[in-house]
């Protein structure tokens, strides 16, 4: 009984933690649905993409480079490139899933969208730690909101207007900024952030597409690799 109560409490805690981001993702999903139908996808295709890909950034990129008929290799490669960061996110969160069994860990990975990963990193740093029940409680409403808002947007089209007018598009950059400050560990982090920001900005100006994410993240990691040894315990 005690055990069941703990699971329930964690479900609710996860759902409560993700609620603001659920609210923020609904207009984004609706815009995606509207853009997809405007690009020439059927309603069913738009919803299927949100359900099976579940990675907003790569879905918008796909709409950007869509052709008729669409090239599965070109768009598939673009999705790989946009989502390469998930490789790093997964590696980072995998080490914090001590409460997960091997199968639970496998089952958790397909749902590691940016926002869910970010909230998981925060939870893993709390004294409660990241539990499977909390993770499920967080994933379900967010995933449901993403797919349902895609359906709504695809059906009603672009009558919502532009979310940029009320600043909702800024919710995710703002979340990421707050998280970077949360991961701050002094000068070493400062060097990583500076290397990542400078190279991302440079590549963003010089090259099309999403190479700036790959190069920026890589520069930050390279900076961490060449940094001085020691202080190992402090940063753990």
């Amino acid at each position, binding site marked *: 009984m005690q055990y069941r109560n703990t699971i329930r409490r964690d479900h609710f805690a996860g759902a409560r933690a993700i609620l*603001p981001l659920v609210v923020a993702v609904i207009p984004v999903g609706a815009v995606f649905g509207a853009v997809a139908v405007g690009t020439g*996808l*059927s*309603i*069913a*295709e738009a919803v*299927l*993409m949100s359900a*099976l*890909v579940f990675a907003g950034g*790569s879905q918008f990129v*796909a709409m950007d480079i869509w052709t008729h008929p*669409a090239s*599965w290799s070109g768009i*598939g*490669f673009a*999705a*790989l490139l946009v*989502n390469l*960061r*998930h*490789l*790093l*996110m*997964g*590696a*980072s969160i*995998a*080490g914090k899933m001590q409460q997960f069994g091997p199968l639970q860990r496998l089952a958790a*990975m397909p749902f*590691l969208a*940016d926002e869910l990963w970010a909230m998981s990193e925060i939870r893993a740093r709390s004294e409660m730690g990241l539990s499977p029940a909390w993770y499920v409680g967080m994933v379900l409403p967010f995933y449901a909101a993403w797919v349902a808002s895609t359906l709504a947007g695809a059906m009603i089209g672009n009558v919502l207007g532009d979310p*940029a007018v*009320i*600043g909702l598009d*800024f919710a995710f950059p*703002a979340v990421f*900024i*707050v998280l*970077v*400050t949360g991961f*701050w*560990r002094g000068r070493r*982090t400062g060097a990583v*952030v500076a290397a990542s*920001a400078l190279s991302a*900005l440079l590549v*963003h100006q010089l090259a099309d597409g999403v190479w*700036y*994410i*790959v190069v*920026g*993240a890589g520069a*930050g*990691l390279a*900076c*961490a690799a060449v940094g001085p*040894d020691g202080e*190992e315990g402090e*940063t753990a």
Partner: protein
Amino acid sequence: MTIASSTLAVILAMSAATLMTRFGGLLLARFVTRGRTKRMLEAIPPAVLTAVVTPTALATGMAETVACAATVVAARRLSLLPSVLIGIVCVATLRAAGL
């Protein structure tokens, strides 16, 4: 309400690519235990987040740049939700003002 086979192929290719990146993290984590690789692992969250957000912060417009700065200042004292709200209100106000 139809699904064209060419579109289905694209969706499946995107799905496979995304799943590769998400499962790949589990494999990557196995090689990382201590020393330099551990330092790099700890640098992943700030490095990735910074790379994603930098063009918005520095190469989109004045409203976004100021709002990002406001969010950083807010995050030093406040928790996630109020900081994000401050950022959103800030960007909406500045855009309405025509910046």
